[in-house]
């Protein structure tokens, strides 16, 4: 497989991977997640068997790191009654954000990741399915459900 210089990937997709992480885990956690994403992407880069869909591959690495970030935060929090409602309702002080992105982060996991991969990362449903471990149809359904829920919450 002939792979392009990693830095070209970073130039091309780095900004949207970073936005994806800010959307998924919040601004503070995104800094660490982005570092982890770049380090772990570089680690596995030379072993890639298929250089055709590097964008989806890069986002799948970012998605795993984002999921790790969410798990770490949930473990730190004590006895969350309901995973989704356990999220803080307001952004921490000093974190510029708005109600939309807080609402996104309070979506159920699959809906949140699918919505963010669809709109912020601009990935097709097929890739979203591969990344989140479901079918293309299920990915489409997760996005639809997420949007519906966001509309209800933000109404």
């Amino acid at each position, binding site marked *: 497989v002939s792979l*392009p210089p990693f*830095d070209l990937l970073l130039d091309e997709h780095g900004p949207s991977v970073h936005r994806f992480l*800010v959307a998924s885990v919040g601004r503070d956690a995104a800094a660490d997640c982005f570092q982890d994403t770049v*380090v772990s992407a*570089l680690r596995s880069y030379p072993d890639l068997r298929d250089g055709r869909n590097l964008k989806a591959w890069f986002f799948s690495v970012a998605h795993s790191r984002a999921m790790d970030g969410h798990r770490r935060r949930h473990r730190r929090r004590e006895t969350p009654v309901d995973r989704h409602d356990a999220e803080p309702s307001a952004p921490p002080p000093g974190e510029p954000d708005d109600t*939309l992105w807080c609402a996104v982060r309070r979506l159920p996991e699959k809906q949140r990741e699918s919505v963010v991969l669809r709109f912020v990362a601009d990935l097709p449903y097929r890739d979203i399915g591969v990344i989140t471990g479901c079918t293309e149809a299920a990915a489409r359904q997760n996005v639809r459900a997420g949007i519906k829920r966001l509309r209800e919450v933000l109404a």
Partner: protein
Amino acid sequence: MSANTSDLETRLQQGPAGDDYAAAVRAARDAAAKAGEVDVAYTTTDSPVGPLLLAATDEGLCVIEFGARGDSLDDVAEHISPRIVEVPKRLDPVRRQLDQYFAGKRQRFDLDLDRRLMRGFRRTVLERLFDDIGYGELTSYSELAEMAGSPRAMRAVGSAMATNPIPIVVPCHRVLRNDGSIGGYGGGLATKRWLLALEGVEEEIPDTKR
């Protein structure tokens, strides 16, 4: 309702506000270098002969590219490693020695070279050139062919010069045509003349036109 929906989707597409990407990507590159996941570090720098791209591995300097467009990195990805990341700090010693050279304060480069982009006979030619032709010395394609042990391989010597991955340090600017005229140069003839003038030998070239 549907206007509302598309408004929502537009806002999602715009993504969360954030202007801290530059800092984030710098930190990520540093973290990757520290974690040992960068095989080839590169940077770009200004010089009296225009922008240069410099790239190095653990073995040493592997690329100096005139114009710094980054075309040489494809070759690096294919023949050395695709784990190529911009880590300017790793090129500091190279940049320092180049600055000294351009300022006329250095005549020999004390740098390790990664020669993996030089292959076969071309490598032999470039190694002879690097080891044997010093500051302010001039040679010719035929002389160099002889030095490399194949006196008739002048054409191969020409292609070794044309594909020299580390110009300036591997001094292909010191190679002239057999009739003593200036010949060609990957960095442009103006650059070749500038380098030869720096080394004080430009006057020795006949028909030097500006």
